[in-house]
């Protein structure tokens, strides 16, 4: 599978996620945010970081980056689109996922392992998991508190012990069709027992096993 990992100015997790996807067998390419053509890519990842320095608010500038039109096109044709942390925030700002992010409940950055429970196995991200199974994955965010006034968001993963005040304990959310998923914890950081967990691999493998668009 050929995957575009988008690099915005200020992204910082792009090489991490590209390396792990590569190790799982994907052909990964880092794509600069000014790219206007993602033809030939089967899926796209918006990685973590601080796109455009989080100016105004997280993702507010990134949604206007030239590449986002192509991300929206791939999402519309059913290709798997994954936003991790800042990438999730960008997908919300771009309207590809419901809801928005505000500061964590305790107004502090949180970097630690958290437990999340699978709430929906119908998305590519969770295709390889069982409903109710618990994964241990690092969280790393200040604006990780997801709010969804519609209450219609499709929740894919829930925090076992909500660390940041996220509505309904949501740690990952999907589009109605299930091919666009945002996840706040970092599955690529749970990719090796030496680093404390490899529970993220099942999620990223799911991403790579997703159906290829026509």
């Amino acid at each position, binding site marked *: 599978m050929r995957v575009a990992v988008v690099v915005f*100015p*200020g992204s*910082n*997790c792009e*090489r*991490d996620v590209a*390396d*792990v996807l590569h190790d799982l067998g994907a052909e990964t390419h880092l794509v*600069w945010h000014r790219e206007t053509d993602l033809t030939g890519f089967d899926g796209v990842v918006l990685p973590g*970081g*601080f796109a*455009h*320095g*989080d*100016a105004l608010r997280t993702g507010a500038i990134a949604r206007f980056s030239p590449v986002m039109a192509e991300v929206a096109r791939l999402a519309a044709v059913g290709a798997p689109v994954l936003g991790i942390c800042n990438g999730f925030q960008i997908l919300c700002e771009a309207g590809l996922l419901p809801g928005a992010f505000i500061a964590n409940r305790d107004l*502090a*950055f*949180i*970097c*630690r392992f958290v437990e999340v429970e699978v709430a929906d196995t119908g998305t590519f991200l969770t295709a390889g998991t069982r409903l109710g199974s618990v994964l241990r994955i*690092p969280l*790393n965010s*200040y604006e990780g508190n997801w709010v969804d006034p519609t209450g219609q968001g499709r929740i894919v993963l829930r925090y076992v012990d909500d660390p940041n005040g996220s509505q309904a304990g949501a740690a990952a959310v999907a589009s109605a069709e299930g091919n666009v998923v945002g996840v706040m914890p*970092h599955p*690529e*950081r749970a*990719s*090796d027992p*030496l*680093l404390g967990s490899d529970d993220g691999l099942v999620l990223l493998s799911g991403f790579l096993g997703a159906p290829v668009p026509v």
Partner: protein
Amino acid sequence: MTAVTESVHRRLGMTDDEYEMVVDVLGREPRPAELAMYSVMWSEHCSYKSSRAYLSRFPTSAPWVVVGPGENAGVVDIGDGWLAAIRIESHNHPSFVEPYQGAATGVGGILRDVFTMGARPVALWDQIRFGPLDRPHNRYLFKGVVAGIAGYGNAVGVPTVGGEIEFDVCYEGNPLVNVLCLGVMHRDELVLGTAGEPGSIAVLLGKATGRDGIGGASVLASASFDEAATEKRPSVQVGDPFEEKKLIEACLELYRRHLVVGVQDLGAAGLTCAVSEPAARAGVGITLDLGEVHVREGGMTPPELLMSESQERMMAYVRPEMLEEVLTVAEHWEIESSVVGVVGEGDMVTVRHDGEVVAEVPADSLSGGAPLYHRPVARPDWLDELWESYVPPTVASPAETLLALLSDPSIGSSAWIHEQYDHMLFLNTVVGPGGDGALIRVRGTNKGLAVSTDGNGRLCLLDPRRGAARLVFEAALNVAVAGARPLAVVDNLNFGNPEKPEVMWQLVETVEGISEACEAMGIPVVGGNVSFYNETNDRDVNPTPVVGLLGLADPMPIDPPRLQRARPGMEIWVIGPDPTPNFAGSSLQRLQGAPTGRPTAPRPDVATPMIEDVARLAHVTPVLHDVSDGGLAVAVAEICIASGTGAVVETDDPVWLFGEDPHRVVVIAESGSALPGRRIGRMWAGDLVIGDETLSLETIATTWHRALPDALGV
């Protein structure tokens, strides 16, 4: 030519004698811009004029040293074509004046020192010291510094994987904020701070120059504080991690494609330093045109442009045929650039502004010509009294004493701090914050790099030579616990006012102690920083050298020791010399009063073989833990807390439980192991039992976890 009056040089932090030296060098009165340049380059912060004479004592060579002290960072060979760059810096004074920005720009500055060398910064360590948290102002400073480190480090995208925290009344009014950065590169990516050959072009990259931080080095970092310190706030720079992140990526691309001949970051002394040091190193002259500098505000004068410490700037030296490509790389990464200078023959730095020459000075008179002071050195007359007034601490109940230690925020869990730092980025953090030394894997190899940073102001107050040497040995033991062998040291020497003879004595003794320990282990000092004038209202901080020690684990242990790996049935061993009944400088002594007595001397003969033993044990042992603050009792309690396993410690001797004598490690080993030490207990599925007292795991865990949050009231 405009002659300047004496009051100007004093306002810039120069003495009358130094002004006369400038007149001697130039053979005339300096122009305003020239005086500005000398004032920053000859500041204590930039020139080390009070310490240079003594720093030459450090052993600095070893076959694996690629770049020693004097460049932007030290560089060592870690084998198979890989190099590690390491540097430590202080941002004490700015952090007191404005804690968030002071700490943030400290992070930004140390990163530039490392990526200036060609290395990608892979990890940061922070060593921070404050007055006790029961004072609201200390809480404000502490929270501001932690927020500044988190705000900058997280956003710039370099993990903060370790550090140190200490609260002591001596840092009241003068917190210490030190930061260490480690970088990794391929050998062919190494870049030096040279201006290259005549014809090279100086390209200023990064953030536009403004009036922030003017005189930071001379006015702020090289003088003491009094009640009016907040008036110095305009001398503190403002950080922008987003600009720095883009600058890192742009520079690393320039190095990867071999587009530059040299690079110098703009930190203290700004443009002045970025043209004079590379020119002096290359033995060339340079002409700088201030009118070409991209600026944030109009109407800046030549002295302001030359002294500005605006952050996130780099000067690249480029061959003319590469200029186009360099500017294209800058444009791609969305950073500003301007062509500001040309390298020529000779040895003069010539500065133009509006078509006029505003400065013309020999390059090496700025960077190497600073005055060298042999300030008076005298052993403090109060030291003997301090040694003689030693009273051993009392321990009525070991269990109660342990709880008191665990609730000390200098000893309790640092999670409140390090969970605000991204410590996992880059997927290399094998052993992260909260342990002895952090261990970072070098991907594409079997190697791991371990770094431990250690300081202890109380020990060094009581005996700076013994104290400093013990810090080096402790740091070495900490990296050995991660399976690494010591490779190199960087030091950050935080001291009081060097115009006081006893402060200079503390410095000289400290340098001697670090040198002796390094020599005993055969490792070099590859860089360092001296921060003087850490005094407020005439009170000096305890002499507080912070040692950063880099170790190499090659290969890295497949399953490195972790406190979590203790299990019921395993045995508790202590290896190292038996402790002596001496609590001078210990945490237990601090609980009961001021530091007194003379600390136990380190044992270089014991240290070196023991470090080797421990590094070997790290490959086969589930748990290794250095005995340091709070002694053996705290070390065992931390293992219990991390592993959720109880322990039975078969002694209630306070010397064994709470003594902090050097060169000791707790080993948790499978039962039946034969180790070169003393078996003092076992792990079990119960509580923590010390002698005939028992503490529940929940009690010790809660006490330890809540120490810092409770002190902060959060």
